[in-house]
């Protein structure tokens, strides 16, 4: 008995080998090294064991708290805003009798624009002095804010950018909405259910797996939010990328400093890779927690419906 199960086990392992190797090389090994480096002073060249120093420093680092709050803001406001907006647009697109094809293309197009180019264009459009948006606002007598230049408006401005680029999510929602069986709506209409009631009792339950997928990926994406914030900070602050300058992310007033940017800066610009590893582990833990909570919530919602 022992010999046959053993042979089977080996065979199973062989079949699983590609997966095991992939996980080991691209997940377990980097994670283990991150843990290992987090106990060391690692300046990218030399390694020295320092015990818990990095962890102690991280816990008292005010910029860590700041950046974590900024990232949390994105998770709490930007992700829901993006989902609601995408759902609303998708819902409208299903109602269109004609011209849907063109509008669908228009809504999807922004997600084809490279992230960096899109961000630069937004900062340009929203320039407080020369940007067309504030000039149009001025025409109707409104003094526009200093969008990417003021701490209060910087994150909402990025949220606008995220809404503009939500074409992918719109398309996924549109597909899900078109998949809802028509006869359910007809039956509900006969029972006297209004539009809102139909949406709550038919549309939402049917598309909830798609919603969950978008929410989970949206949150993971928000936790890793880096490029747009970095580019917006750089362009809005007027920092030039000329040789001899080191840009510290976060402009204005640390409002756009997200956790991944802080991590990157600490590791690669401040030479504290050990500390950056601590941040990376925290980021990993936070992503895990968010994902688990969301999965559980939706699991419950699904079971209830």
């Amino acid at each position, binding site marked *: 008995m022992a010999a046959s199960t053993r042979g089977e086990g080996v065979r199973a392992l062989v079949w699983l080998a590609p997966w095991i190797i992939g996980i080991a090389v691209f997940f377990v090994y980097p994670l283990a*090294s991150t843990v290992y480096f987090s106990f060391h002073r690692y*300046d990218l*060249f*030399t390694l020295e064991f320092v015990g818990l120093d990095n962890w102690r420093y991280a816990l008292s680092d005010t910029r860590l708290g700041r950046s974590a709050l900024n990232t949390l803001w994105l998770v709490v406001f930007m992700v829901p805003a993006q989902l609601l907006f995408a759902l609303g647009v998708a819902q409208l697109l299903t109602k269109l009798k004609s011209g849907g094809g063109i509008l669908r293309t228009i809504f999807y197009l922004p997600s084809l624009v490279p992230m960096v180019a899109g961000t630069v264009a937004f900062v340009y459009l929203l320039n407080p002095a020369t940007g067309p948006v504030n000039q149009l606002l001025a025409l109707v007598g409104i003094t526009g804010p200093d969008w990417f*230049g003021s701490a209060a408006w910087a994150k909402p401005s990025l949220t606008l950018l995220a809404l503009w680029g939500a074409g992918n999510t719109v398309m996924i929602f549109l597909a899900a909405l078109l998949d809802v069986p028509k006869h359910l709506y007809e039956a509900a209409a006969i029972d006297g259910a209004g539009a809102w009631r139909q949406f709550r009792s038919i549309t939402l339950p049917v598309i909830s797996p798609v919603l969950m997928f978008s929410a989970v990926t949206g949150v993971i994406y928000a936790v890793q939010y880096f490029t747009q914030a970095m580019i917006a900070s750089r362009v809005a602050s*007027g920092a030039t990328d000329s*040789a001899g*300058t*080191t840009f510290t992310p976060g402009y204005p007033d640390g409002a756009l400093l997200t956790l991944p940017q802080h991590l990157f800066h600490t590791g690669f610009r*401040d030479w504290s890779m050990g500390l950056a590893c601590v941040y990376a582990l925290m980021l990993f833990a936070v992503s895990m927690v968010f994902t688990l909570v969301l999965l559980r919530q939706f699991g419950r919602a699904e079971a209830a419906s």
Partner: protein
Amino acid sequence: MRSLPLAAAGLLALTLTACTAGNSAPPALGAKPTTTSTDPAALPAATLELWHGFSTDVETKAFEDAIAGFTAKYPQIKVVAQKGIQDAQITQAIRGGQAPDVAASFTTDNVAQWCKSGAFQDLTPVIAQDGIDLNVLPAASRSYTEFEGKRCTMPLLADAYGLYYNKALMKGEQPPKTLSELTELTKKLTVRDAEGNIEVAGFIPSFQYYENSPSHLGPMVGAKWYNDDGTSAIGSDPAWKQLLQWQKELVDWYGYDKLEKFRKGLGDEWGAEHPFFEGKVAMVLDGEWRNAMIAADPEAKDMDYGTAPLPVADDKPDLYGSGFTAGTVIGVPKGAKHPQQAWELVKYLTTDTESLVTLSNALRNVPTTKAAMDHPGLAKDDRFATFLDIFAHPKTSTLPANVNSVFNQDAFSTFLIEWEKGAVKDLDAGLAEVDARIDDKRKLSGS
């Protein structure tokens, strides 16, 4: 099968400990003494890769002309130059074992870390071997190119900072020599419209304005960044408080909101719409390189302007004439394929008088050695000579090399933005916090 996880864990531990960047052993500088350092022909032939930060056509050409001087002397050596290189790229290449033979950086911020970690090779043995007297360099230039006894870079060209003033906007006044004169003149020269908006500023005191960094302004009051033991001196040196209080008074005279509105409407620092070019500001703190930019600008080149040392604290008149200096640095990274030839190139570019003079004349930067400064071929019009004098002044200072240089400057700048905004209630407590941030980071870096 039970032993498999154990074996895997063992393997993992092994790779982990082995796999930190850059543990190969390339040829090091000065490992074997050069036998005939005086005869150029004795140097073996090689193709050197050189990375530098110059990017405009004029600069790149000037630098390549200087390199051509070297290859004329050593025809067996070919130099391939890569322009527009950032420090991060240099560091990354060294870690990846793809280091160039020679690398030049436009900032002194990373010198300490590069020296400390050995990313750039210590030049001390070859300097001794070739009998180079480093006293030809001013103390400030010596200090920003080394760290804790390891000289891993040499100064290529230097920058000095002073005051530029637009004579048409000065209303016949002479440039200020003290901070109170600067305040007085600023108030006199500033022009506002009916609503109180600034049209022409006498001097922009904002710490966020272009070159107004604490490192450039500190020398006006003789402020010190670090104590002898390496801890932060920002909170304890009364000079910083003096600077901050002077600055805040002037910001408040403008009105912070008005000043910010004015500042944000100004043109790009490196473009043709620079406020000094456009006559929007009467006096600015800037580097000597601004002279060349003004001369190269088709509209601004006819401006009637003058240069002077920065005004200094009223109670420290002996500081007048000094200023801030830093510059480009050049060295031989770890892993350079031809370190011996690379050092010859570094030596030529940083100590050859003719080469320095040519380079300085083309780039309008300050040459670093005394011989080059005194050379008759060095172009010295009055506006440029001001900066040569600032550079040579015994009290001229630099930002001392520190492994956390970028972090420390950012910690201070972040506080200064709060300060000028008026968000700081207790200056002493605020500065003490800056000290704490810098010292905590220092402890973490183990220096």
